[in-house]
């Protein structure tokens, strides 16, 4: 199933985000740090994409950062291993290291009420 979406790459203003968070229907801003095309990286991308599409449809912004391509970004976030998923919004910031194959764990860690189906 292909889902037609337009990747915006933008996050809107802070106020908007706050409002969204206050409203309870928060927008998730996620960053996934990967190392090129290593197997776990690829798996992580697939997994998070799946999770987002299923449980966070329409209210997430996902960025996938290849730390080979952007090593500076990795240092800024103090990433030491890949793949690592960082949830920047909503607060608190949480990290997950690994290929994110354990969906429950990820959801729990992200404070996402899983959607059934």
């Amino acid at each position, binding site marked *: 199933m292909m889902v037609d*979406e337009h*990747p915006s790459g933008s996050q809107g203003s802070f106020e908007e985000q706050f409002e969204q968070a206050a409203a309870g229907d928060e927008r998730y801003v996620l960053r996934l740090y990967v190392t090129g*095309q290593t*197997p776990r990286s*690829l798996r992580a991308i697939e997994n998070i994409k799946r999770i987002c599409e299923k449980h966070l449809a329409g209210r997430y912004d*996902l960025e996938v950062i290849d730390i080979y*391509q952007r090593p500076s970004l990795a*240092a800024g976030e103090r990433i030491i291993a890949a793949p690592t998923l960082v949830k920047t919004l909503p607060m608190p910031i949480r990290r997950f290291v690994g290929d994110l194959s354990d969906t429950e764990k990820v959801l729990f860690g992200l404070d996402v009420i899983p959607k059934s189906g």
Partner: protein
Amino acid sequence: MTPAEQKSRDELLLELDELTLRLQEAEETLEAIRSGGVDALVVAADSGQEQLYTLDGADRVYRVFLESISQGALTLSGDGLILFANEAAGRLLSAKTEVVVGARLRSFVRAADRGRFDALLENGLVEPVNAEVRVRGRRGGRALYLSLHPLRDRGDRMVVAVLSDLSGQKRTEAALEAEGLARAVFEQAGEAIVVCDKDGLVIRASRAAVKLTGRQPLFHSFDDVLPLFGADGSRVHPLRRSSGSKPLKGQEVRFDREDGRSFSLILIANPLKTREHGHVGQVVTLADVTQLKQAEEAREKLVRDLEKANRELETIESLSRAGLQLTSIDQLAHAIVSHATQAMSADEGALLLTSGGGFEVAALVPPVEGGRGSLDGGGFVQTIAKMRRTLFVKDAQSSRLITADERQRGNHSLLGSPLLLENDLLGVLWVGWKDLHVADAGQQRFLEIIAARAAQGITARILADQRDEQRFTAETLALELAEANVNLRSKQESLELLQELSILANSSLSLSEISRSVLREAHGRLGLHAAVICEMDDSADALRVLARTGFRDDDVAPSQLAPIDDQSLARLVRYGLPNVTHESESPADRHTTSSSSGVEEEDARWVALPLKKRGRMLGVVGLTFLGRRLFEENEMALYRSIAELLSTAFENARVHREETGTQMKEAAEEERSRLARDLHDSITQALFAAALKAEALTEDDAIPTHAIETVGQVRRLTRGALAQMRTLLLELRSDPPEDVPIDQLLRTVVEATEGRSSIAVTLTLRGEVELARDLHAPVYRIAQEALNNVVRHAKAAHASVELVVEPSHVQLLVHDDGCGFEPDGPVPPTHLGLRSMRERATEAGAQLRLVTAPGEGTLVMFDWRPHEVPNA
């Protein structure tokens, strides 16, 4: 607190210290790793084995390579999810790689191409595919070349995608193509095209431009290579003119090449601008129209010449038309000179016609006060007349040809042409210009043509005038002829009658018989209402009626003696003058002369003529006609002739009664001769006059056709009349038949017959011996009478007269192919001739036989044999 809970504070503090240490260690380790202090990590792999991961490896080169190439490199999952994208991919997809990875490639494809992309991806999972797709982005996105390769990585279906930007390539290709095209056009263009830079240097020149300049123009200054001049001779600088943004369009310039050739060019100059750099130079196009211009000039000249020729033709045409319409030579001459002068824009013109030894001015334009007068022609005209050709004098004032008179007229230039008609000089036509004028060959030719037409026209006019006269003459002649014809006819009829009467008058010596037969004949022929012939009885001083017709018996009885108590008769008798009454002057007259004749009911006219010879009254003949009118001269002449005949006959009879002998005979003959002469004179004159006229007419088509017919008729009638005349003459001439050769006698009769009828008569004479003299008269008379009958009764087309003279017999045969008659039937009263024929035959001792039948013609046979006893 429980014992567990009662862990000593000390124990907890110790645990805490430991933990802190451990944490510190962990953080240091992490720090060490992060700071690059380690090369590798020891990690438990999936398989449970320890796996070593190095951080800095050989694939670094490939990563650098991937990031440096211009193509976009992507790794896609089986769903089309982008799992990896290099920098270039992000650029091509117009997005940051952070959002490219994790998105689906499909979402970057333009909506229209998505279907194709899906199919592409599906195929790409199986085998390499490539195609063009358009992706979204600014300015409508771009076209990308997408290459897909399937990748099997540990059982997962994945696709490696390579994106190439075509648009740049495409633009380059398009540019290259355009450039190629432009170059081809440039080279093939017929015009010289020169591209100059901002400084006016030639940076591009087409083949035609090189040819035009005659040298290699590249990198030379345009002005040096192509100096151009305008129509006024001033220099033209196309680069300067159009260095603003206005293009220079379509100016005609002249280029003088170094080798001397001149070209007419059409100049177009446009500024050259590019998007990036603005105004960079000029494009100058020069179209060579030299030949075109020459052709144009030649065409214009041709058109001018044609127009001129056309005008000249029109002039000639109108002249010709005028010539036909104008009624006089003067008008024609004037028209010719006016047209010529006008058409040639001359100031003066004249037409001179030859007259006597010199010339007469027929027309002068503009007209001169006081008439035209005559010129002796002067030097110019004389020269033309002598040389008989067109002459042009450019400067009359200083030419030796021109006389002082002509010079005085003030013309500077003169052009003249002779009017010739088959070598005859009719005149001279000339025109003059007050200012210097050069008459080219065309104008000279033009005047020649007009002069030729003038010659024709004037000749035609003269001829037409003559012809009109001729026509008039001819018509008059025709009328006269018609009249003469009528006259002739009546004369012919008169002659015929006279001939008949003459025969009758000579057929007997009995006056009453003669009178009777004459009246009978004359009654019908003359249309008499009544007539009477009387003999003068001297002793009784009265008129004895010898014969009458039209009168009732009790009015005028034969042998009746009418006393001469009538005034008119008395006058007639006494004075011997014919008495004519064309209308009764008094009822008494009428009554007297035509009492009980039945005429008194109607108007009548009558004439009484005396019969006298040698002063002696012998008798009277009176003729009455119906209708009141004057007797015409020819009628009177006829009646007089009849009276003459009768007079002669009466005299003969009287003489015969009284005297015999040669003397008397001579006297009679004398009378006859005189009569013959009179008749001859009067009639022949008329005949010959008519004949002369007929002969005098030439076969001219100016004579109307009816006149021509009349001419023919006249000729025929003339011949016939002359023949009859001869017959009549023969009748009345001195020579008796005995003295005239028989062939001449018979020929006369035959000719006379042919002349007064349409019967063809043949004459055949056979025999060894001459006819006896005393047979001349009977043969002649019988032939005459027989032919007479043929003419009057037979309605024949052919007749023949044959005379055979042998020692043993003489035979005369007169045959006709006419209607014949019943031989045994009652003799028609008009066939008196038969009796007289028989009488003559008997008298001559011959036999007369008649063979005829209705429809079978008639044969009269006169048969003489010697010693034969004639039949009774």
